[in-house]
């Protein structure tokens, strides 16, 4: 079931490239807004000095200290902007998540914005619930790390516990919660489940369906690589001239655009995976929970064909 889900994700990408552009563009616009005070500060402090090219060519702690001293206040604004931008982004991401699922579900073309309008509030509630879970999970994990650290102390133990075990556990925990959150959101949109029920569905999902985790990891890998590559490039490419700086930036943007594509493909795959299972279990669910029968919107509740089985058919729809 992994392969059809992957295929469905990729064909969803081909079908809805606009979603990729939308995700990428909102990120870029917010980031550009954030960068304006930085650009102004650096242009003001370094611009007239003539040190610009030297500083672009390599790190110079002496000049950097002078810059921070002079432009520190302007740079602090950057962090103030993050205070409103991060919450705003999280709301957007909750909306985009449900919008994507709605838009990518299998039977026909549906409007991303319609999904946003219909499910954002519940999507947000779900996000908050998982944030609380993540908070609890992080605290518990750190507690476990502390206990292990107390047993395995000393410089060697300290290294493995703090620098290896703790990050691995935290990343694993967050990845598992993210996977659960993905399917909870899908249950919310496609299954039309109420928030708490959707949360239950999501949390049970990786345990009930063994292929959910490999499917997640298959998308996780390129997502992580594409997210890190711009930094690797930045550290290793000494761009000191205007054209080199632009060249580096455009390359990074291509990578980040691909990263947005991975998000869309990822959602498409998981949506298809969910639908496949949902369709096969639907009669059972419908019998048990008639009150929760998914309401229909502008289409039949489910397609006659299993989504993903003939992706080209519904891709062309």
């Amino acid at each position: 079931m992994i392969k059809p889900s992957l295929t469905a994700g990729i064909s969803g990408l081909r079908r809805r490239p606009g979603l990729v552009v939308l995700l990428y563009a909102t990120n870029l616009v917010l980031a550009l807004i954030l960068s304006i005070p930085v650009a102004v500060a650096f242009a003001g402090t370094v611009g007239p000095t003539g040190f610009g090219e030297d500083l672009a060519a390599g790190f110079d702690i002496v000049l950097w200290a002078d810059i921070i001293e002079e432009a520190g206040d302007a740079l602090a604004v950057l962090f103030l902007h993050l205070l409103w931008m991060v919450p705003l982004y999280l709301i957007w991401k909750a909306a985009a998540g449900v919008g994507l699922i709605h838009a990518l579900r299998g039977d026909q073309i549906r409007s991303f914005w319609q999904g946003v309008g219909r499910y954002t509030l519940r999507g947000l509630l779900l996000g908050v619930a998982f944030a609380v879970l993540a908070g609890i999970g992080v605290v518990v994990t750190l507690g476990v790390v502390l206990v292990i650290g107390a047993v395995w102390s000393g410089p060697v133990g300290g290294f493995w516990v703090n620098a290896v075990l703790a990050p691995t556990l935290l990343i694993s925990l967050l990845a598992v919660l993210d996977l659960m959150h993905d399917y909870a959101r899908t249950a919310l949109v496609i299954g039309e489940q109420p928030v708490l029920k959707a949360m239950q569905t999501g949390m049970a999902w990786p345990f009930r369906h063994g292929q959910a985790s490999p499917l997640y990891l298959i998308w996780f890998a390129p997502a992580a690589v594409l997210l890190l590559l711009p930094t690797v490039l930045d550290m290793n490419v000494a761009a000191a001239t205007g054209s080199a700086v632009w060249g580096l930036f455009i390359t990074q943007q291509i990578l980040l655009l691909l990263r947005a594509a991975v998000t869309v493909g990822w959602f498409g795959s998981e949506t298809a995976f969910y639908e496949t299972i949902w369709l096969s279990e639907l009669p059972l669910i419908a019998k048990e929970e008639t009150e929760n029968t998914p309401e229909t919107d502008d289409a039949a509740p489910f397609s006659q064909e299993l989504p993903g089985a003939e992706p080209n058919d519904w891709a062309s729809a």
Partner: protein
Amino acid sequence: MTVLALAVPVLAQKATIYDEPLSERRVAYTLNVTLDPEARTVRGTERIAWRNPDDVPVDSLQFHLYLNAFKNNESTFMRESGGMHRGFSAEEENRWGGVIIESMKVTTGDQPTLSTTYRTDDADLTDRIVYLHPDDDNLDDQTVAAVPLPRPVEPGETIFLDVEFESTLPRIVARTGWGEKSDGTRFFMVAQWFPKLGVYEVPGQRYVPEDAPRGQWNTHQFHENSEFYADFGTFDVTIDVPEEYVVGASGVRVSETTDGGMKRLVYRAEDVHDFAWTASPAFLEYTDTWRHVNLRLLLQPEHDGQAQRHFDAVKIALERFDEWVGEYPYTSLTLVDGLGGSNGMEYPTLITCGTAYLLPDWMRSLEIVTIHEFGHQYFYGLLASNEFEEAWLDEGMNSYVETRIMDTHYSPGSAISLPGLRLDDGPGQRTFYAKSTPSRGALFTRSWEYEVDADYGKASYMKPATVMRTLEHYLGWETMRRFLRTYYDRWRFRHPTTRDLQDVAEDVSGEDLDWFFDQFVYGTAVVDYAVEALEVEAVEGSERYKSEVRLERREDGIFPQTLRVRFEDGSTEERAWEGEAASETFTFDKPTPAVEAYLDPDNAVWLDVNRLNNRRALDASNVFARKQQFKVVVWAQQLFYLIGSLF
């Protein structure tokens, strides 16, 4: 140069490369001690010999009992540090230390019969010991002791004392004490551990006036920020430890025997002013050689694999100090990888380094600490300035040479070498000085008299490294090197002062350097010159341009400046400015307009606390601001994707 003729055992290896004494050897210590790892004590006997170097009789002796700084919360050290120093915390068990003098007697019987040996019928001095508080009125501090003698020691006469003492080692604090590894293995850094004579300074020595009627003891209490000061001499030290302990010590090992589960090690050190040792069953031992020096490294097992990094670094230091400063006269050097706060410290021919498990190559802290602590064999060891009173002479001069070695050998990235982030040691220290209230804290300050505690570090390490690098650029490296060599030649095995160092610099350079030392060594002058404006206008009725550069001195420090002006046609002109006035204008009338004014274009004046304002260009490129903006954009996009993937 009279030398104490003590019974010298047959040496397996000479302690120095010379047959004759290299120092005045006013003191000699013979110690026989046993380490009790369970009790964390070192106890035994000490025979101290001291020769009166003065022209008048001296009626008392003064000692440092440094370990008493860790005796309780009432010592000056603990009061000043608030109970915290290099990882020492008040809650630890068995944290306290101290030294108890069980008895102190004038040696009566079996010492070598010198015609000038001090004799008395009233030999027991134990009850005569009193504590002194030369630096404050803290009656509870017991780190300086005085012993009034039954009769004075005559000029040239030598007094021998037999002391029975027990030193309790504190939990590692201020570089000394015991530590425990996570598997329960003990580690001992036995430093500042025995009753030790202060320095009797004769008239004309250091700051005692030439015409003073008599010399005086120079002792100071152990302060939070202070290090040490002692006279050159010889050490014959016999150490008993449990058999499984690996020991490293100052000097050379004369013999090693094992008997009944205990190991007896005999060491001899010559022409040094302290003796420290370390013991732990955990040490891995490595050896190497550099020319005449036997190198020995005692490494924590978890740092196995980093031995070569230690040896490489210390050999670079040996090489450079030999070339730039002078010969390393000793035949041994022990490098110790200790625990916690015992690391990063210097003792004669023994240094503690310090690293971390799996320390990556790009992090040069291991090289920096090894080269720094080795450098103290010169600035502290051989050039034995008073660390209490003039810490910059040891820490600062050493930091200067350390940064120079690091930046010569490992630059770019001599401190941190990551792609995209290469940080050099010297510029790092310069920046620390420039951005930590540079107007506060003179180099020439007694270590416990800084108004703000943190200024001790800045004024003893980073600022002097910056001051000396600036002096180097001012005098030229060849002159600077002659200065370092002459300072070494003139003052090795003695106790130089700031004044002596300035004298050498002036002799070598042939220049009165009061202006420099008064501002940057004795004073706190701050240097900041700036290009205030660059203005160009076409001269009417001609094809010429009038370019005007306005320079400003923005702080009180005065330092000669070089201005380089670049013109549109690519030509440049340089102007010198003595930098005394608050501002200065230079005007250029040329057929081409100026496009850039650049003060100190060769980056010679490291003391300048703001380099960014040294330059103004009319054709400046905006590439840096654009690059930084793009960095922030990408960074923010990554952040959004990351948090977005979680929620």
